[in-house]
């Protein structure tokens, strides 16, 4: 069971050129809006036609420009969960779900799916009388009764309030797990991506910049874009100083790299990876701003005597901050925590 995608499509100035393969797991396409994530899903579903390339699901070509194959969306048997769920407003919950049946009249399957998704009590309601979470469950149920061979999830939680998201995300994870099929998730939310997907592809401008397991991508982002999308807030331009050291231009800091590391053009470090106190790559800093979150504190720092002018941040829990609170802080940036990035 696998999905292979290698397609190209031009839309005005935008050029999508993407290639990836997934097994029976969830792959997240992580990218900013306009990066071509949704377009990729639409091509796989068949509601948008690539200019050329191949899309192969479990050995069967859904699209192959060379062989002239382009299955209509109806025959691809691919479950597409739309961003705003696209429930049919003129039908009840039950009728909506019946629309997903591939063999008409399988009442038992509809009843059973409604029961497992907790929708039985709502079966005569119209979509406009449902909450965001209920709508999402109806959309999922409607997909599931069609026994999809592949799940496509397009920003599935973006239409929900934050307090609903957590719950709905858990339900969705269970559904994906139970189905045990390949799933493609499109998102710009790094936390959501990390919790739901085993593999992550970072996309920008229609290209896949980096692809790997979620641990690989989150621990070792290779580009500035990947670092930003995986939540790295401290990023500075860098120049080689020779002898395994670089100068972080924006912060005005001299940093020693791990032995044998290739000198990058940018360097980054996560807010949580900056260490309070003396150590490797230590710096005396002035605190320029303190940002308080419900359970943590982030201090923005400018190295003393440095001429960079751009502060970097350190995040610590409230307890630690109370002990260290001052307008001067000594921090260190361990070489092993530095992210070595390409533009």
């Amino acid at each position, binding site marked *: 069971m696998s999905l292979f995608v290698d397609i190209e499509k031009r839309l005005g100035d935008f050029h999508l050129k993407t290639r990836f393969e997934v097994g029976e797991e969830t792959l997240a396409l992580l990218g900013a809006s306009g990066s071509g994530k949704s377009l990729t899903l*639409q091509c796989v*579903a*068949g*509601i948008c036609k690539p200019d050329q390339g191949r899309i192969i699901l479990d050995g069967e070509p859904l699209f192959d420009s060379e062989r002239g194959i382009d299955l*209509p*969306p*109806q*025959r*691809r*048997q*691919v*479950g*597409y969960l*739309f961003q*705003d769920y*696209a429930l*049919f*407003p*003129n039908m009840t919950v039950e009728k909506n779900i019946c*629309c*997903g049946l*591939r063999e008409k009249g399988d009442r038992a399957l509809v009843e059973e799916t409604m029961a497992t998704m907790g929708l039985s009590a709502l079966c005569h309601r119209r979509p406009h009388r449902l909450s965001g979470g209920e709508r999402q469950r109806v959309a999922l149920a*409607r*997909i599931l009764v*069609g026994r999809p061979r592949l799940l496509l999830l397009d920003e599935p939680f973006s239409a929900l309030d934050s307090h609903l998201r957590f719950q709905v995300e858990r339900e969705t994870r269970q559904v994906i797990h139970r189905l045990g099929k390949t799933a493609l998730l499109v998102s710009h939310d790094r936390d959501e991506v990390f919790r739901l997907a085993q593999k992550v592809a970072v996309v920008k401008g229609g290209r896949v910049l980096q692809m790997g397991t979620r641990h690989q991508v989150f621990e070792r982002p290779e580009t500035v874009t990947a670092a930003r999308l995986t939540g790295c807030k401290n990023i500075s331009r860098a120049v080689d100083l020779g002898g395994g050291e670089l100068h972080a231009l924006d912060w005005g800091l001299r940093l020693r790299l791990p032995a044998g590391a290739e000198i990058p053009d940018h360097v980054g470090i996560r807010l949580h990876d900056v260490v309070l106190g003396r150590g490797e790559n230590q710096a005396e800093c002035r605190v320029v701003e303190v940002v308080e979150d419900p359970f943590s504190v982030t201090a923005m720092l400018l190295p003393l005597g440095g001429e960079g002018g751009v502060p970097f941040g350190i995040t610590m829990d409230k307890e630690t901050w109370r002990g260290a609170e001052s307008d001067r802080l000594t921090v260190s940036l361990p070489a092993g925590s530095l992210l070595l990035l390409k533009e």
Partner: protein
Amino acid sequence: MDWFPLLNSLRIALISTVVVFFGGMFAAYYVAKTPRLVKGILDVLFTLPLVLPPTVVGYLLLRVLGPRRVLGRLALELFGLKLTMTWWSAIFATVVVIFPLMYRTARGAFESFDERLAQAGQTLGLSNTYIFWRIRIPVCRQGLLAGTVLAFARALGEYGATSMVAGYTPGRTATVSTTVYQLWQTGNDQLALQWVMVNLAISAGVLVAMNLLERKKEAKR
């Protein structure tokens, strides 16, 4: 009072509205899918009767349907049918005149339709025919209904093109509007006023119905 003109007006309006309901709806649906240049041309063509004087529409129709013209002669020779000066000749005139009303309202309704609903239907395996009749039409029904009512109201009031194509023959081609004109012409003011009242009542009723529809549409938002 001889009720024939009312009956004739109603049957002409009803048949024309049915024709235009389907014609205008399909035209709106397919025009939206054509390339931009074709769309522009068809859009002008389908909207033209809205801005043309009815006499110009009538003239053009006579050029085509008249017994010595292309279609008129063909019908006469093949079926022995005269296309002008019968009660149903008015249907040709009325259809052309009210077509833009249905076409434009339907186009507006289809344009505000969320295309993702159709796409969702396709990925679920629903046929395009099912999606059109069971999703697109019901979701757009308020707009389509408003267009139909508007077209029907205009059909009842059609005078210019009808009088040219169907003429005025009492008991055969007379409609409410042509009757009013004829009665006024011949100085039968009393009867003319009665028909004016009938016409006012029907038109007002149709407009009230349309406003009720509009209000229902707003309440749904």
